[in-house]
Structures are given as C-alpha cells and as structure tokens.
C-alpha cells in the first residue's frame, strides 16, 4: 500500500514535470512577441523569455490577471501563472507595437 502511494506520488510528480516542460514560451526577439495569441489552461504558466538585445517591460492590466515584470534584461526568463479565465491583453510598456492576447480557459 505504501509502495502504491509512493508510486502514485512519483507518477504525479512526473506528470507535473511533464506539464512544466510543456510550458508555452513567448520570445521577444526583434521587439515582437513570437505569438499574437496563445491559449492556456487556468492555473498554468507562460514563460516570457527576453531573447532580444534590449530590455522589455512585459505587463498586463487585464482584470484578475494583472502582472508587471518590470524591466526584463536580455537573457532573462520569467514564468507567469494565470489564475482567472478570460482574455489577457499582454503588452510591453516600453514598445507600443508589442502586444498579444493570452486566452485563459477553464
């Protein structure tokens, strides 16, 4: 019984590692987001990776999913976990052409 519980734990852990590895990555090279829209399940994370040559300031003011990464230097990666379902407009405060939508589903 104990073995089974341990076994289950290992599986759960393995699954969550699998989910982590599958986290969507948004690149910012050339001052554009690599996707215009992205769908994720509520409670899962999106990785914002600054693989550009200049700092970006990724943020959202969409209700329930507000965040602000501040000045993200090149070569920095940050995960954002969305807790509310709905459309999240993500922008770069610095560069007005950078905008994308994260659709958070139940």
């Amino acid at each position, binding site marked *: 019984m104990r073995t089974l519980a341990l076994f289950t734990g290992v599986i759960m852990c393995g699954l969550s590692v699998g989910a982590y590895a599958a986290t969507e990555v948004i690149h910012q090279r050339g*001052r554009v987001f690599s996707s215009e829209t992205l769908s994720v399940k509520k409670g899962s*994370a999106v990785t914002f*990776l600054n*693989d550009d*040559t*200049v*700092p970006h*300031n990724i*943020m*959202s*003011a*969409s*209700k*329930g*999913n*507000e*965040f*602000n*990464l*501040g*000045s*993200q*230097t*090149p*070569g*920095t*990666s*940050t*995960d*954002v*976990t*969305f*807790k509310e379902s709905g459309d*999240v*407009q993500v*922008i770069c*405060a*610095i*560069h*007005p*052409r950078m*905008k994308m939508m994260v659709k958070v589903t139940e």
Partner: protein
Amino acid sequence: MSKPGFYHAALLVAAIASTASCLVGFSTIGFGAAVVGESRKVEIPQNARSGLDALKAQYRRPVTIPFPRENPYTPEKAALGKKLYFDTRLSVTSAQSCASCHSPGFGWGDGLAVGVGHGMVNLGRHSPTIINAAWSAIFMWDGRLPTLEEQALGPIQSPGEMNMKLDQLMERLAAIPEYKPMFEAAFPGEGMKSKTLGQAIATYERTVVSERAPFDAWIEGDEKAISSEAKRGFEVFNGKAQCAACHEGWNFTNEGFQDIGLPSKDVGRGEFLPGVIKMQHAFKTPGLREITHRSPFMHDGSLATLEQVIDHYDHAGVDRPSRSDLMRPLELSAQEKADLVAFLKTLTSELGPTAVPVLPR
C-alpha cells in the same frame, strides 16, 4: 496603424491608465492577479556577426506611405487637410494654425525650446515634428493619443493651445462658403463635421515625409554620398553608443518610451502608467530625420545642439530607478562624438520649399 488591432490597443492603454495604480509590487502579490515566478538567467545564442551590408539593409526607405484602412488617401482629402492645417481660424483667436507650431520652416516644428500656446503662454514640452507621422504607432510625447486623426483634434481643443471648442469651430467653418464644397468632395455624403476635419488634417500630415537625404544615397550604394567621418559615426551609432537600440530603422525610432535621465520633473508616460517604474519620466523616442532643422532638442527643448545631445548620452544623465537600463556612461572619445554628429547630419535632406495654400473665404 492600418492594423485592425490598433484601436483595440488604444482601448487597452486607456484601461491600463485606469487600473495601473494597483500595479505596484505585483511580483509579490498573489490574490487577484497572475503569479510571477522567479526570473532565471538564460543563455541566448547570438546571431553570427551580420556585417555592414545586412545592417545597412535595415535602413532602406519605404517606397509607399501607409494610410489606415479607416481613412484612405484621396487627393481631395489631402488638399482640404492642407488648407485646414495652415488656417489660423482653427484657433479661438484666429491667430494660430497647426503650422504655427509645426512649421515647414523649422523641420515641421517651431524652433523653440517649448511650444507657445493660447495667449502666448509657454507650454510644458517641445513641439514635436510631424515629419513621418504616417509611420507612428502612438502619438504625443507621452503617447496619450492612439491615432493621428485624434491627435489632429487634440491641440485645437486644448485650452492651453488653440483653445477652440469643436462645435464652435464647425460653425465658424460652415460660415466660410468655400469650405463646404471641399468637404463634400473629400467626404461624399459625410460633409463637414469634426470627424472629417480630423481625417482631412491627418491625411495631409501623412504626406509630410522626410525627403531623400545623403544617408539614403549611401544606403542605396553611393559610397561618395557621405563622408568617412559619417560612415564611422554610423558604426558608433549602431555599436558602442547603442543609439539604434531605440532610434532604429529608416525613420530612426521604434516609438518606445524611455527615461533618458533628463533632469525634469515631468513624468511623461508615467502619468498613464503610474505603477510602472520605467515609465516615470519616459517619453516617446523621436525619429531623427531632418534633424539639423529641428533644434533645440529633447522633449523639453533643453539641449541646443547635437553636440550637447551626444554629451548627454555620453554621461547618461540622472541615475534614478526609472532611467532606462540602456542609459549608462559610454566613454566616447572626442573623435567618436564628432563622427556621430557627422553621421546625424547626413539624415537631413535638401528640403524643398512648401507652398502655403490660399485659404477659403
């Protein structure tokens, strides 16, 4: 500007402005907000050195002017817009036109440190040029207006500028007989209203494009078009001095908002994004075309010469939390500074004269 998403973005900015005061310290807040995890350092593979030719290719002039789908170009609209742009009767005093502060004689600015508005009172910021406004994604030094159509109506109504109520203006224009048929020709079935007024002025403004400069001839292959000092300056601009991190592309701006460390109390973009540290004292990056006609420089007109501008960037200005991470002492040599100035001067064309239109009576 022609993208349908543009107006959506405008709404978003308004939404951010109204909610941004709760943005402070989000990285530590969980409830009612997305959760921000720890940041990690990631090795970014750098592209192989692309070389001068690839760099120069990024600076090619566009062949056509972009007009938005919502307000396409017609010659009738542009002609009407030009008359309105130069018509002083758009101000309550009938003494100031758009061209008073955005004059072709001063690189489509006014040659002053800060603009002069209603009652000859100084404004808070330098009058920006309208050159290449067709390529802008967002308007005003603080980005508060999302389209050129809205921008055109802003200073007309602003109490400190032309101080003219739109209802009163449309009544005044309706009393000038020659305007009515021009509006009808430009906007069949729509006629005279504040919306078409803004559309006509914006259409004319989009036709104000920087002319071919020596720099363009060099980009297109004429090695004799600019001096060797200027060519070295181009490399400093793109390399050691990192000017191109913000002043990028043929119009020399990516429209980004940056605090460049000028010692002014004006928070600029920060007024609309109060919780975002990097937006405090941040202003829209201006393009650099026709730059020698546009002194004095900066959002507050505080620097008189290009040499002073280069010196400012060299020592990086006021070190404060809002200052862009791109601002750091550059330690440029006297030669590098002189080369940068020589390069900047190649962005100015032999600007042809602009004919002032005969105005309707």
